[in-house]
């Protein structure tokens, strides 16, 4: 049995009733008196010069209160496109009207004169010299060219010695790499450890393949929405559906040049985020501008179609990956070259390409990654940003190696996994993590060791790692005269984090979970809090909550010591009351009595404060096994079994943790099998849930989740962030299972029926 009474227990979420009854207030439920409806005017072309924008016809429409373009952005920071649009749906203007239909009609009446330009949507096409160029100055040399140019520059700077011979030799060498100049490059990232060439040379088996992962949308249920209200004093209030109200506040302040504390951001209940709900310009800034111009509150709400054309989805990418291993199963080298589809602006999570190293001892590693501009909207985070893509490549290729050397895929992974103290390729030394425990747990739970498969059935395994982030946060705890506890903070509840915070505080103050309530403040009232993304909240706010509760605990004992006339060291807080430990004179006083007493003391009421910002996090592992059956006639794949284990450190609320494991796994399954934003010359061609498929409950059996607990030294009670890891291995899990079922490696996602049928055909089946 656990030594704890509230943490480690499954309790009902603090928001369960309001969610189930519909009382929760989402962004679109906010309707201040006099509110106007905003509508963003969007480009109808994926790449075009803008000759002119004529708003005159729209202005004549009764009910139109304001039309704004980039000319109305006093700071000059780019909110709307002016002379050029780079993707279908790019904002050009915004309208505010008394009615949503009028706003929409006004938007239609704005005449935009386009000069249509050639479009590039594929990253491999975009890096070619022949590709249309989205920005003027974005050409980057290839890695070899850059290395050589770097050497030339270094030598040229040395004025004291003559390097002319070396320089001309290098210049000749530079000429040898004309094809490795990449165009439309937005960013790059390079990592190297050891010597991959030596590693490949020493390998018995070398496998090389190219993996293609599509751009997918976070598909949160609630589209982006904000309601802004600017008053005559210049104070701006924004009701924002966001993961990070404080980030939105500073984002609006920075974009529009408004003093930080003249902006109050009120976070509304979030209808899902998954990393995609941090955008500032997407709806919040236009709403503020429209409200400033009209003097009335304005709501800007995206439709689902707008979410697809102008959301900030997860980037697709192409990863060329090469792995070398010995016949006895030792991985010696891995090299990756990745091109990430950044869309029209930089920002794709290219740094995550390093995740191809996995949790393995790979002595030689080289990773080169580029962000590439295409005629799409920009990208943002999606649940472990970049990791599912890189891990899909890495874990798919591991199975190919295992097959060639004739080793069981689980055993192959176990033998290569890093242990405590091992070097992390290009990244320091490994802490204690339950890598092997987690993989063994899923193998045992799934029945891997005595697995059976009929014809066209197969089993796949994969693991994925992720480390939670950490950020600043503050929490206040008050104890009231009735003994109840109130928590006040500023972090958005995501995945049940308010519940976890409440459990931690109930545990420390030894009160029933039910007597704790939690309230989130806005940015005017609450202490600063980091955004709810990157699996940070339970780690950060859990620690913060612990500090606050411990602070309150100290004050409680102090008050009790006064009241009971006993030394603090002889007191114990237990079951919601303070007791004198030496039982000769059993005496106790309840929290309520102490709270009432505190009101007339010099020290004052019981208020605990916790503030926390940084501590080293510990990696987490998700390991999954799927059993599938492929219909070779239609190419459809059915999942027969899906088991997911995860090292969560410590499960503060086991049911909530299982919910995260199931949800992440299902999203990974969807990415592997059906989700894909499709693009044509004109832009996104499947901007809705008819042709952008997310699975329903009929597509999957119940995901069996297995909780593994290897505590994180700095996590509250040992907890790690649990939200992101479970999506990381599923893409590869599915591809590996399909490979096992039909003997064909699908390297391009999603694994749609047509792809399977075509692959079977080209393999002569």
């Amino acid at each position, binding site marked *: 049995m656990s030594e704890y009474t509230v943490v480690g227990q499954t309790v009902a979420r603090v928001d369960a009733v309001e969610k189930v009854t519909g009382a929760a207030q989402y962004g679109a439920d906010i309707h201040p008196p006099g509110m106007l409806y905003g509508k963003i005017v969007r480009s109808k072309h994926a790449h075009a010069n803008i000759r002119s924008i004529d708003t005159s016809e729209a202005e004549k429409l009764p009910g139109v209160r304001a039309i704004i373009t980039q000319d109305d952005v006093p700071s000059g920071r780019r909110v709307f496109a002016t002379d050029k649009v780079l993707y279908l749906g790019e904002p050009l203007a915004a309208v505010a009207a008394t009615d949503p*239909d009028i706003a929409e009609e006004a938007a239609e009446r704005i005449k935009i004169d386009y000069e249509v330009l050639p479009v590039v949507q594929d990253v491999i096409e975009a890096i070619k010299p022949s590709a249309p160029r989205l920005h003027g100055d974005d050409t980057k040399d290839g890695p070899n060219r850059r290395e050589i140019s770097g050497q030339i520059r270094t030598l040229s700077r040395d004025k004291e010695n003559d390097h002319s011979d070396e320089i001309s030799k290098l210049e000749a060498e530079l000429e040898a790499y004309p094809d490795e100049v990449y165009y439309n490059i937005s960013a790059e990232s390079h990592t190297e450890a050891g010597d991959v060439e030596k590693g490949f040379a020493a390998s018995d088996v070398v496998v090389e393949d190219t993996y293609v992962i599509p751009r997918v949308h976070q598909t949160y249920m609630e589209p982006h929405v904000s309601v802004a209200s600017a008053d005559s004093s210049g104070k701006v209030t924004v009701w924002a559906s966001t993961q990070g109200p404080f980030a939105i506040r500073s984002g609006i302040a920075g974009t529009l040049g408004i003093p930080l504390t003249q902006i109050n951001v009120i976070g509304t209940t979030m209808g899902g985020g998954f990393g995609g709900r941090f955008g500032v310009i997407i709806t919040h800034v236009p709403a503020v501008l429209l409200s400033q111009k009209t003097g009335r509150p304005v709501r800007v709400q995206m439709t689902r*179609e707008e979410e697809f054309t102008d959301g900030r989805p997860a980037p697709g990418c192409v990863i060329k990956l090469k792995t070398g291993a010995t016949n006895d199963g030792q991985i010696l080298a891995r090299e990756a070259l990745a091109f990430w589809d950044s869309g029209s602006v930089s920002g794709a999570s290219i740094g995550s390409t390093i995740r191809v190293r996995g949790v393995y001892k790979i002595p030689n590693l080289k990773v080169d990654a580029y962000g590439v501009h295409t005629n799409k909207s920009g990208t943002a985070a999606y649940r472990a940003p970049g990791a599912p893509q890189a891990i899909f490549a890495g874990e798919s290729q591991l199975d190919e190696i295992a097959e060639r050397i004739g080793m069981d895929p689980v055993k192959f992974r176990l033998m290569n996994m890093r242990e405590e103290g091992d070097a992390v390729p290009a990244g320091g030394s490994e802490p204690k993590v339950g890598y092997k425990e987690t993989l063994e747990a899923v193998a045992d739970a799934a029945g891997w060791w005595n697995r059976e498969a009929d014809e066209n059935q197969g089993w796949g395994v994969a693991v994925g790692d992720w480390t939670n982030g950490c950020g600043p946060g503050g929490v206040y705890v008050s104890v009231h005269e009735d003994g109840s506890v109130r928590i006040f903070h500023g972090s958005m509840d995501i995945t049940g984090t308010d519940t976890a915070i409440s459990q931690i505080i109930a545990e420390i103050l030894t009160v029933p979970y039910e007597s704790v309530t939690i309230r989130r403040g806005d940015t005017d009232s609450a202490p600063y809090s980091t955004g709810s993304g990157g699996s940070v909240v339970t780690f950060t706010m859990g620690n913060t909550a612990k500090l606050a509760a411990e602070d309150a605990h100290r004050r409680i004992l102090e008050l009790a010591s006064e009241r009971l006339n006993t030394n603090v060291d002889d007191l114990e807080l237990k079951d919601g009351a303070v007791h004198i430990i030496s039982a000769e004179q059993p005496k106790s006083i309840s929290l309520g009595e102490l709270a009432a007493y505190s009101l007339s003391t010099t020290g004052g009421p019981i208020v605990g404060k916790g503030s926390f910002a940084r501590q080293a996090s510990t990696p987490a592992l998700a390991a999954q096994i799927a059993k599938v059956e492929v219909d070779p*006639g*239609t190419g*459809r794949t059915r999942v027969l079994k899906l088991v997911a284990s995860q090292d969560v450190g410590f499960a503060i609320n086991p049911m909530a943790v299982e919910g995260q494991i199931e949800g992440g796994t299902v999203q990974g399954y969807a990415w592997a*099998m*059906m989700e894909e934003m*499709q693009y*044509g010359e004109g832009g996104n*061609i*499947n901007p809705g849930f*008819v*042709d952008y*498929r997310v*699975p*329903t409950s*009929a*597509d999957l059996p119940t995901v069996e989740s297995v909780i593994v607990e290897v505590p994180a030294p700095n996590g509250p009670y040992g907890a790690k962030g649990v939200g992101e890891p479970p999506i990381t291995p599923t893409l590869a899990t599915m591809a590996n299972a399909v490979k096992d079922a039909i003997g064909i490696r699908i390297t391009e996602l999603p694994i*749609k*029926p*047509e792809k399977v*049928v*075509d692959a079977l055909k080209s393999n002569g089946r």
Partner: protein
Amino acid sequence: MKSFEFYEPTTLAEASRLFAEEHAQLLAGGTDIIIGMKAYTETPETVISLQKIPGLAGITTDGDSISIGAMTKVREVELSGDIQQHHTALAEGASEIGSIQIRNLATIGGNIAHASPAADTVAGLLVADAQVDIASADGERSVPIDELFTGPGQTVLTPGEIITRFRLPKPASGSHYIKHKIREVMDLAFIGVAAAVNLDNGTITDARIGLAAVAPTPIRATAAEDLLKGNAPTPALLEQAGETAAAGCSPISDLRCSAEHRREMVDVLTRRTLQYALERARA
């Protein structure tokens, strides 16, 4: 949504008169038209609801034949014992439309009059040899379902004509519908195949194959049907029927899949659908 005039006539004649005007649209269940209006792909000036006209909904059985009112909810078609038993392919097709909530609103008449080549009830009606009854202010007429469609979204209906019911004659002894899709439920048909067969002493006496989403209109695979008639259903014959059906269709490539894949699936699924229909006929 663009503003429009809304009418709720209580007689077919009145509905027909209103519907004969330009830019008029009928509202049955609303599951297609309302979405189109919200997306501005449909911008009718007049919307005429059929919901207040009595007698347009309901399934009635008369001896061997079944009549389905055009305003009958798809869910009712799906759950009708008579249709499940005698026109299994139609019940199965109905069960593939959208979600239960959608099927509780959508009507079979709307599903057909919308004239999508991918409609889920159409293949089942094709293999049932359904007659489509049509009314207008000028009178009534009836056309066979395979003569109703002229192109995507296009039918032989003239201004003012309204589908009132589908009449299904004596059923085949076994039928089946298969929809090729990605998602298990709530997906659109990549293709749809229905087959209905009569067996007599191990010989196929009649066979009908209906194909959806493989041509500008839903079609019958008549060449494949002819191959089957009068023969014993051997695996080789079914394979030949599949190949013949595939050869006879003219699918397009779109964002869902390629024309080639659709054609291949016609081959595979025609064989399978026939097998299931034959099993039912034998049972």
